[in-house]
């Protein structure tokens, strides 16, 4: 079952921040500074958590994962933007 997650983070060292950013790029769309939107099956959510767990410093950094619920057969409605529109990539086979 795929769910939509918003992942946000505060990382105190630039080195770890970059590692978190690079890792998160593999899981979802970079919405804005330190905010990612990810549409993940349970397995990848666990993977993401495990990887972030290893990267961050548990006393100095924090990561928040907000579960926006299942995405299967549903379009995203819970996101509204003001100003510059947010780009969300559609899941599907890609042809370049």
């Amino acid at each position: 079952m795929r769910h939509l997650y918003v992942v946000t983070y505060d990382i105190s060292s630039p080195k770890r921040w970059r590692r978190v950013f690079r890792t998160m790029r593999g899981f979802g769309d970079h919405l804005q500074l330190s905010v990612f939107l990810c549409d993940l099956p349970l397995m990848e959510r666990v993977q993401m958590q495990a990887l972030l767990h290893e990267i961050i410093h548990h006393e100095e950094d924090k990561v928040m994962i907000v579960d926006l619920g299942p995405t299967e057969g549903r379009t995203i409605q819970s996101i509204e933007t003001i100003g510059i529109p947010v780009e969300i990539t559609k899941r599907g086979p890609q042809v370049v």
Partner: protein
Amino acid sequence: MDAATDSAAGAEEVPPLPVRMLNEYTYCPRLGYLMWVQGEFMDSADTVDGRFQHRRVDQEKKRRISRRAPVDDGPVTIHARSVSLASDRLGLVAKIDLVEGECNRVTPVDYKRGKRPHIPKGAWEPEMVQLCAQGLILRDNGFECGEGVLYFAASRERVPVVFDGALIARTLELVDLMRKAAREGVVPPPLVDSPKCPRCALVSICLPDEVTFLQSQAHEPRPLFPSRDDALPFYVQHQGARVRKDGDVLKIMERDELLAEGRLREISQLVLFGGVQVSTGVIQELCKRGIPMTYLSGGGWFYGVTHGMSHKNVELRRHQYRTATDASRSLVLARRFVQAKIANCRTLLRRNASTVPEDVLDDLKGDMRRAGEAPTMETLLGVEGNSAQRYFSWFSSMLANGMGFAFEHRNRRPPKDPVNALLSLAYAMLAREWTTTLLAVGFDPYLGFYHQPRYGRPALALDLMEEFRPLIGDSAVITAINNEEIRRRDFIETLGAVALTPVGRSRFIEVYERRMSQEITHPVFGYTISYRRVLEVQARLLGRHLAGEIPEYPSFTTR
């Protein structure tokens, strides 16, 4: 490389059995067999989390067990993590999470990711057997060991397990059973309608309900695996593009301009048309992740595939080779492929062409019967040729009028009209799809039962795609034309050969992929499933048939 494969070269006929596998075998004999003997593995949320919990155990400082206890310093405390030990007598190997104790008296501790189960014995049998086997190995290495501990990480509870006579006897019995199954090479039957199956990571490989259903028709199969895939194909057809890797993301570049990006986790295969460059970094990463990369010419001719190390399931390939050398068994399979193909062609005509006379449909039915009775491969080829001619002579009646597309007969190398160009591309895509599916399941795609192995053709892929030509290929072509997604101007003609323009090709790929993603009711099992997944299920069922588990290969025909 793990211990099991390491020492297999010795005189031992069965390599040492890892106790972790004994746990799986106790849970379900078939699961243990698939994982240990056939080397099957698939990740699920549970296995990923389990590995993560164990990595934390293993990362803590490793220490060897020192058994030279100094005589006068009092008892020596042992506290060693991630200890690898073997017992030659029992033919067992184990990696023990933690060994605690004093002097010679030790206790193995095994970490479990979940919470303690609230059942009378305090733990489930597979965990107790695994722990007991660790205890027996420790005993064979000169330690005294009367009990072990299961540590449940989620509830932070320790559950002691006493190695009494009954547990030891049960453990030894299971070791013998598992080694016997491995020696004899017979896969244990699936559990019947078991509540263990839905959470099992290997359920889509094992196909417990499907196999049981095809054996005895007893229970309607439950939908135990997702009806669609999480990862999808990524096509690059932009000539002159380069594919680069940046972390977990693939970047498609043209000079310094970024054309597109794709997350590796969401890619099931990378498909390259014609002149596209790929960096070594990308190739290595794709091999590591088990994502195949396929090459097609600009016109869609399927050249080849790059993939990681071959699949471990040698047993499956042995069954395949054995059947392919057996002319009568090959003929039985070939008949089914052809019969199902004609059946699906007939259904497609019946549904999409109202003008087709009843006697043509009857003739096709006759072809089906003749294919089912064909005494030799030559006869079968003849029947197939005849029915194909019959089918294609009515093919144009399925195309909507006024789109400017005419079709008289099938031609190729090169296709001489737009419809044939589309059909050729569709079949090439299907051959590619089947080749990668067969590789992923563990087959050798080059050795078939109907198509002969020559000219490097993926014969088995061509065999299995027969019944899907009308279902996926022809159907995508008809949709593309009738919905006006492809028009006359999407083709270019050079010296009598007709090819698609890059825009047309890209649009046709979209139609084809939409068809692959389409969810249908499985004609035999009754649950909803996408065509993409149907291919994998068919390939695994073929494996089950070759291994003798199910009497016939259930070909896929729609009504």
